[in-house]
């Protein structure tokens, strides 16, 4: 039987290569080896996904490869999640409502953030794409969401993020708001009064943790 580090490396490679069957197989094997689910995520899945992100940044990977990596990651998470849920060490890191804004049907970046947040212990409600502001508000209220994540991939739909911030404040929700998407910058986030912004999915998890930290302090 392969060792822990070999299994983690193989799992990372399966994610990197968008190998869905491989990602499932290696995650199952990892669990059989009694590797803690959080370790499988941190040492197998996330490094693979991060590598895919690096190759994307470098112009070596394109959307299909990135989407393939996300799918392999999702498939592995399906294997791990039942065990993760029973992992005694796991405490829900926070409740998140996520979606792509109204008028925008870009799915991949948003889904990647949703998967990574789930992998990091957040309870995530993914509303999909083309989500009206009202729907974000309704769902956030239902779940008493700690964070609302809104993605916009078009310069023409970014303004929806501003609408969302205004509506959340007006509704008096306590939810923090994170914004992301290719054209979304830290300046834009500041400009519209969002609480957080991240340039990629891995960074989004760190920002979400940071926002939760602020919650605990208050």
């Amino acid at each position, binding site marked *: 039987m392969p060792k822990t580090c070999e299994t983690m490396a193989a799992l990372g490679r399966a994610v990197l290569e968008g190998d869905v069957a491989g990602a499932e197989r290696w995650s199952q094997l990892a669990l059989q080896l009694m590797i803690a689910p959080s370790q499988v995520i941190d040492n197998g899945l996330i490094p693979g996904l991060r590598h895919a992100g690096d190759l994307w940044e470098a*112009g070596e990977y394109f959307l299909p490869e990135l*989407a393939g990596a996300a*799918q392999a990651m999702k498939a592995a998470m399906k294997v791990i999640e039942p065990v993760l849920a029973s992992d005694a060490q796991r405490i829900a890191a926070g409740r998140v409502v996520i979606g792509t804004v109204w*008028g925008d049907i870009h799915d991949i970046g948003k889904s990647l953030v949703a998967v990574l947040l789930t992998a990091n212990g957040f309870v995530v409600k993914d509303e999909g794409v083309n989500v009206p502001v009202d729907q974000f508000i309704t769902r956030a209220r239902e779940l008493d969401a700690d964070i609302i994540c809104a993605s916009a991939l078009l310069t023409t739909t970014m303004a929806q993020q501003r609408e969302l911030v205004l509506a959340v404040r007006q509704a008096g929700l306590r939810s923090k708001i994170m914004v992301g998407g290719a*054209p979304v910058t830290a300046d834009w986030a500041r400009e519209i009064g969002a609480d957080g912004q991240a340039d990629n999915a891995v960074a989004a998890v760190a920002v979400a943790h940071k926002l939760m930290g602020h919650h605990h302090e208050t």
Partner: protein
Amino acid sequence: MKLEQFTALLDHNRPFVLDGALGTMLIAQGLPSGYEPVRWNIEHPERVSSVHANYAASGSELVHANTFGGNRARLAASGIAHLIGQVNAAGIAIATSAVGGLCLVAGDIGPTGLLFPPAGTATIEELQDVFQEQTEILAASGADVLSVETMYDLREALAAIDAARKTDLPVLASMTFDVKRRGFFTMMGDSLLPSLLRLADSGAVAVGMNCSVTSDVMVRMVEEVVRQVPVPLAVQPNAGQPRVTATGIVYGAVADSFAEDIRRMTEAGARLVGGCCGSTPEFIQAIRVRFPKKDGAP
């Protein structure tokens, strides 16, 4: 319009001037963010019409009707798939009456937003059906030519061209490429020259690049490929890169330097020239003064 008639227009010893942006012009007139622009063909035809009329007056020889998002998949995302006949027919009618015979009207065909696996679940057949429905309506509504634009997946572009060619109208085809370390690629990883060659091979009368990059970058693209592309090359760069400001999205380019880059592209061999996001009739005018129409030319 017959294919030979259109190729004859391109044979003139000067560039053929297209129009500039439509979407960002409509946004400037109050189109809300996220609102499907084709809806304005029904709700605000006079605003759409004024943009076309402005381009015609600025010297465009062809305007793109407001039908970019008029395919069933995009319309369904806005919950208005049932309006497909109406928005496309109105788009052509508005443009035709706005330009009053001054220039040609292209039925504009943009991407469906559906993605092939692993990014999505679309199939070639599905996309062919979606495009065929729109191209048939555009042709029946009186479009002079069909223009497939801003395609980021070569397979989708070819599906659109296939559907468009069944109408017997001349077909222009343009994809959108970005600068990567190893060259120019679409976001799906289709590289510049092989893509253009496939578009030409599939029967497009002119092929090219639009959107994504600024005019100075597009000069480099043209220089890299123009000698190897067997059909006329069309270029429609953005007017600078979008910047988000407190008042909205701003495109930074100045019309004069944009038109100077367009002149460099024509010197390199580009034949059809225009602008994409952020460009305005002022940009087309700046191009036009560099290439005055000859007497008797259409």
